[in-house]
Structure formats: structure tokens, C-alpha cells
């Protein structure tokens, strides 16, 4: 059997060689940075992507701060939070950016985040003044069902109207257990209908063509015309209009009002660059950043800038009534509501 060792040895040698070469090549591709301080920000993938807000924000901030800004992308905002939780006090993150108010309480409960110390006077959120000293809002949008105007000439105007439509009118939604819009819809119906929320879901069930894991799967199916409407944001049509010059898409205005998603950022308590992080938090509310956000993240900025909203945003449907549940209440009852939802849709 000794002969077999030889063949094995040579196989291992080849493998080791290839691994070394590969490792070296990979090491070379990672860029070394020479700036004095590095500000590390954990966020979700599309925020950090080349076409997202991160590159513009990074460039603008680096011009003034004499530091290096590093955006680290997780697969979702919850993913970014989980990563900090996993790393605990030894995390490299100075800031976590992109959580929403529905998950913020869970984040607060970890005790990993400190105060932002930013001046919030500039904020012009639909909910009025902002009092949270840990989580700082930087943009927002409303959950809404998006449809194609050519294919749906008379969109429903409420959940009741939607439920009254024949069952071959199909919608695609996301799972509240894995997606923030999915959770948003659950809270939306809960806030609008309270104890009757379950009945709304029961009536809605035959129209749900599928429940997807994330926003992108659902939106992809909608664009393939597998459903008449998709759960997304009131600001989604702006992407099609501005980036694709396609004006066929709109969001359906619901009488019950629309649930708000406010995206927030927070400083990690264990950060060694607190002063720099605080500077960045304030910078997030500057006109520079707030003007970058609409056409890169496709949501509303959190302040009213001098330049104002881009053209495509002005024609969007702006909900008259805003719904938002208190984060503490959400955290308390979330799993109960989700269990109920699973039971209702599982029938």
C-alpha cells in the first residue's frame, strides 16, 4: 500500500501549490490603505454597492475628514446587525447603517449601541420630531403595492378593495420572517385593522401568488408579470422613471394609510473612533448626503435640502395618512403576530 502514499503525496503537493498561488493572488487584490484613521460602517448590500449611496458618501466625507471610510456589506440590514452581535465588543464596526425602526428595538436591547449626539433639528420626517438619541434617521419611504398602469388600469384603493377583487388578481409579497418589507406589511395590516387583521389576511390569501424570501425575488417575479402587484415602496416607480425612463409603474394609494419605513444608523458603543463616528452621523444629515440618497437608494431623504427632490419624485403618490407602530410594541408582539400569520397562510 505504500505506493498509494506516493500518489496521494503528489496530489497534496499539487493542491498546496495551487492554494499558495491562489492565496497570494487574492492577497494582492485586497487594497491596503494608508490613511490615519479608518471609519468602518456595516450596512446592507445594495447601500454599499457601486451604484448605491455609499461610494458618493464615502468620497464626500473623505474630502473633509482625513480618514478612510470603509463600507462593509452584509446581505441585509438585519444581517449587518447580526454580524455586530456575533462580533460583540471586538467588532471593527464604528457604525451600523440601514436598520429600520421595526428592528431597532431588538438592536437597542443588545446594548451594543451608544448615543449619536447629532443635532436632529434638520429632520423633516412625516412623524414629526425625533427624540431617539441612539438611532438616527437618514431616509424613509412608505410600503406600498406597485403595479403596471398599462396592465392594471383600476388599481385597488384599500385592502378591502383589494380583497373584493376576483381571486385571479395576484399579488406577490415577502416573508416577514426574512424580509423587512414582509414584516412591514404584517405591521401595516396590524396597525390598520388591529383585531381584524387576521380576517384581512384570510381574505388576502387566495390572491397571494407566492411569498418570497426577500424583496428582490418578489420584485423580479412582478417584473416577469407573474403578479399584478408587488409589495414594495411608494418610491419604487421613481427608479423606473429616472433610471429607465419608464413611466408605466405606479404605487397604489390605500385609504387605510401607508406604513412608514424609517432607516436609521447607530454608533457602536465599543467604537474607538467615536468622535469621527459622531462627525459622520451629523454628515449623514447634511445636504450633500441627503441629495445623494433619492437617486441611489430610491427613497425620500430625511431632511428638506436646498436642491429639493429630483423631478421623478415629485409625481409620486405621497400618502396622506402615515402608519407607524411603536418599536417597543413591535418587539414585544412580533413573534406572536408572525405565528398567527404563519397559521393563517398555512391553511
Amino acid at each position: 500500500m505504500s505506493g498509494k502514499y506516493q500518489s496521494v503525496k503528489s496530489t497534496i503537493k499539487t493542491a498546496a501549490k495551487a492554494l499558495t498561488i491562489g492565496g497570494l493572488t487574492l492577497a494582492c487584490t485586497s487594497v491596503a490603505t494608508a490613511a490615519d484613521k479608518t471609519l468602518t460602517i456595516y450596512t446592507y448590500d445594495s447601500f454599499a454597492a457601486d451604484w448605491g449611496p455609499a461610494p458618493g458618501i464615502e468620497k464626500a466625507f473623505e474630502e473633509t475628514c482625513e480618514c478612510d471610510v470603509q463600507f462593509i456589506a452584509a446581505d441585509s440590514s438585519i444581517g449587518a446587525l447580526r454580524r455586530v452581535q456575533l462580533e460583540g465588543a471586538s467588532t471593527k464596526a464604528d457604525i451600523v447603517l440601514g436598520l429600520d425602526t421595526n428592528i431597532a428595538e431588538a438592536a437597542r436591547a443588545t446594548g451594543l449601541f451608544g448615543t449619536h449626539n447629532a443635532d436632529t433639528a434638520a429632520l423633516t420626517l412625516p412623524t414629526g420630531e425625533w427624540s431617539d438619541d441612539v438611532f438616527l434617521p437618514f431616509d424613509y419611504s412608505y410600503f406600498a403595492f406597485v403595479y403596471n398602469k398599462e396592465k392594471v388600469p383600476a388599481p385597488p384603493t384599500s385592502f378591502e378593495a383589494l380583497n373584493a377583487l376576483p381571486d385571479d388578481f395576484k399579488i406577490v409579497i415577502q416573508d416577514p420572517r426574512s424580509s423587512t418589507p414582509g414584516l412591514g406589511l404584517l405591521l401595516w395590516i396590524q396597525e390598520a385593522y388591529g383585531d381584524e387583521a387576521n380576517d384581512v389576511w384570510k381574505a388576502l390569501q387566495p390572491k397571494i401568488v407566492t411569498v418570497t424570501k426577500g424583496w428582490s425575488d418578489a420584485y423580479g417575479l412582478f417584473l416577469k408579470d407573474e403578479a399584478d402587484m408587488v409589495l414594495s415602496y411608494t418610491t419604487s416607480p421613481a427608479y423606473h422613471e429616472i433610471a429607465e425612463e419608464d413611466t408605466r409603474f405606479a404605487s397604489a394609494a390605500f385609504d387605510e394609510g401607508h406604513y412608514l419605513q424609517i432607516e436609521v444608523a447607530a454608533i457602536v458603543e465599543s467604537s474607538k473612533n467615536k468622535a469621527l463616528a459622531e462627525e459622520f452621523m451629523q454628515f449623514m444629515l447634511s445636504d450633500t448626503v441627503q441629495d445623494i440618497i433619492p437617486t441611489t437608494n430610491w427613497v425620500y431623504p430625511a431632511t428638506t435640502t436646498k436642491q429639493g427632490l429630483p423631478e421623478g419624485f415629485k409625481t409620486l403618490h405621497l400618502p396622506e395618512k402615515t402608519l407607524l407602530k411603536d418599536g417597543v410594541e413591535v418587539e414585544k408582539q412580533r413573534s406572536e403576530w408572525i405565528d398567527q400569520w404563519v397559521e393563517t397562510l398555512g391553511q
Partner: protein
Amino acid sequence: MFPGLITASALLLLAAVLFSQLTFHPSATTLSVGSRIISILGWTTLQATLSTVLSVVLGTLLAWSLSHYGSFPGRSWYIALLSSALVLPTLVIVLGIVTVLGRSGWLNDVLSYIGVAKHDTFIFGLPGILIAHCYFNASYAARIMFDRFEAIPTEQAKLARSLGLNAWQRFKMIEWPAIAGTISKAATTIFMLCFTSFSIVLVLGGSPKYNTLEVSIYEAIKLDFDFGRALGLAFTQLLVCGALVLFANRAKHRDRLISATRATHTDQGLLRAWQLFSIIVFGILFLLPIAAVITDGLKANWVQIFTDKNFQQALVTSVLIAAISTVLVYASSTLLSISYATLTAEQRYGHGKLSRWLRQLISFSSTLYLAVPALVLGLGFFILAQRIGGSYTTWAVVALLTSNVLMVLPFAVGMLAPAMTKSANRYDKLSRSMGLRGWSRWRFLESHLLKSELIYIACLAFCMSLGDLGIIALFGNQDFITLPWLLYQKMGSYRTDEAAGIALVILMITLLVFLLPMLLRRQEPTHAAP
């Protein structure tokens, strides 16, 4: 023998280390399985069983047809395409299936063109899950079964003919004994693939009632950050799959010779027409989703995609990672298979309880990772990385390579180990008398004899590693982007056209890699076994 056993032990140790990482974390409180475990388990088993039965029956039928129909133009291409089913990027193909069978799909276009009423949406829910599972797994089963059918020696076919056996008798008396062992193995693998199915169930599942265990684990970790429940569910999954592996390994494997010459036993008449029909229908069904991905992808702006430096970087990284993974798969699966053969072949160490036990260890360790949830694997690595320290890029590379190898290993060993055993049984005496040992034996004997298996494993390792998102999402980093990760990002930010383009690139590389051996082999004569 020992390097393989060490590898097997290392694999089991690695699983234990990664799992235990989750228990060390403060987020793991009490081990639980949640309140819906019975219904989740019931549903997961039901869909996996249905998918497996359908896939195996369809796959065997196709393999039988292909083998008996004999040559037709493009036969080898057809078979090469079938091989690629296992590695085609799942999400990409699922969207292709939607393009074909969806509400606004091609089928409905055709139906309305010929004036028949359009079909309702049926691909979400159980039918969709079964269709997608069959797409991937029936092709996989067919490819494996085809090899078994082809390995039946010509002499037996001739004998059957001279005895005047009909197709059914032939199947029962000659072919079934030759494929039974493989069927049970393939069925086990397919069952596990469907049991742990993730992306397909998430996209086509339709409603939360169709949640698999794997999806529940995702939910426990992602939204509830409940490691105790995640571990409880992961252990449940491991337990079911582990029991299955052990059970399947108990099934006696028939030992058949590798055929030197292709058995040409073509049928006539109705039987032959039926075979051709199966081949054509299956071929069309297989090609349609691929064609859909191509049509969707061609609409993308190619100049923009190829000049994007992120794309270029992702392409280079992905190809490199895939290449290294291939080498690692080669090394580990060879080690495991050599040991397996040594512990199986009667003339070596094939007797005794200990051998059987060690053989089980090898099978078990190489198959185990089919049952380990990717998220648990990734998290284990992540926590380990943190405890040990070092750059995330390095850890991301290590974790990605490891997960790639573990992902391919069940298939690689599943193919190589029995082949090695057969080669041992047939050629041990001859090689000993010729003094062929070790490397030279490998070079002159196995590398020729097992050529098609080795090529298949290389293609498998490369493509699976290339198309899998794996666990990179956990280690997110600006400087380390792979193609699937880029695809995922584009899909998550309205860029459906670019995403379709990147999906097409991944698909094309996958197909090219699988068809390349075909292109090359055409120019050299087939090697007859020595």
C-alpha cells in the same frame, strides 16, 4: 488507506467544531426545536419523498431510453448537458422555469396562439417545487443511471437476445440487478438534496406552510437570532439525513464490471419510438428554461457589464476560487475513494467488521455535509474566525473553499469510490504481476479507466463552486466579490437587466465547462481500457 481515514475523521471533526461554535455564543440559550416542528418535518419529508420518487422514475426511464436507443446525432452532447443539471445555478434556472411556465410564460403564449384557454398559475406551491426538484434531480439521476446501463457488458445483452427475453424481462433480470445499488444511492442523495432544499422552496414555495427545515433554520438565525432553536433544528435535519445515509449504506451494492465496449442493444418498433419520444420530450423540457435565461440575459447591456471593474474582479475571483476548490476536491475525494476501495475489495482489506465500520465512516463523513445547513456552517466559521482572529478576507477565502469542497464531496466520492473499487477488483492481480504500484498505477490504469468519472468530478467541482453564493454573505467585504454575490446585489437593487446578464454569464461558463471535455474528446480516439 490511512490518509483517507484521516480525511474522513477530519471532516467529522470539522463538523463538530463548527457546530460547537454556535453553542459557545451567548445567543445560544436552550436547545429547542420550536412549536411547529411536527408539521415542518412532515411537510419536508412529504415533498422530498415525492420529488425523489418522481426524479428517480423519470431519470431511470430517460437513462434506459438513451442507452437502448443507441446513437443519434448529438447524443454525447445530450448526455453532457444532463450532467450539468446538478451544477446549474438554482435561482437562475428557477427564474427560467417561471419564464416558461409562469402566468405570462411561453406556455401560455403558445396556448393563446393556438386558441386554447390559458392555464392558471400553477408553479407556486407543491407543483412548482416538484417541477423544479425534478428538473435538477431527474437529470442528475438519468446521468448516473445512464452510466450504469452502459456498463452492462455486451455479452449479457447478447445472451438476453438469444434467449428471446422481452424488454421487461431484460430489465428485471439483467438491468435491474445492475442498477439497483446505484438507484438506492442516487435516491438517498436526491432525497437529501430535496429535504434540505432552500432557494427553490423559498421562491416557489408559495406559502409558509411549505417551509422546509432549512428555511426554519434560516428564520431562527436571521430574524430571531435564536441559536438554540437553530441548533435544535439543524440537529433534527442531521439526524434524519444521517439515519438515511446509514440505512442506504446497509443496502448491498452489486458489484458489476466496467464494460470495455459499449453494449449496443437497440430495440425495434414501438419500444424504439417510445424511447425516442422520451428523449425528445425530456430534451425540450430541459432546454426551455436554459433558453429562457439566455433570452432574458441577452437583453442586458453587455458593454456596461464587461467594463464594470467589479464584474471583472468578481469574474477573476470566482474562477480562481473555483479552480482551487477543484484541486482540493480532487485531492480529498481521491484519498477517501482509495481508502474506500481498499476497505471494500476482498483481495485487500474487504473482510471483517472493522472494515465495514470504517467504510461506513468514510461514506458517512463524505455525505454528511449534504445535511449540514449552509448557514450553520457559515456561522460556525464566522465565530471561529472571531475567536482566532485574522483578516476577514483570509477567513472568507478559507470558509468559501471549505464549503465548496464539502458541497461537492458527496457527489465526487459517490462517483469515484465505487469506480475505484471496481478497478481494484478487476486489475489488482494484473497490476501486481506487472509491478504497477502507486503513482505509476494511477497514471497507467486509473487515470485512463476512470477518465470520464475524473473529468465529471472536475467539472462538477468547478461549476458548483462557481455558481454557489455559499457563505460569503456573512464575510462581506469590499475587496472580495464573487459572481453570485454580485448577482445577488444587482437583484437586490432594481438592476434586473444586469442581473439577468450576470446570470447568463454564470450559466454560460457552467455549460462551457461541461461541454468542453466533449469538444476536446472529439478530436482524440476513445481509449479502450487496458
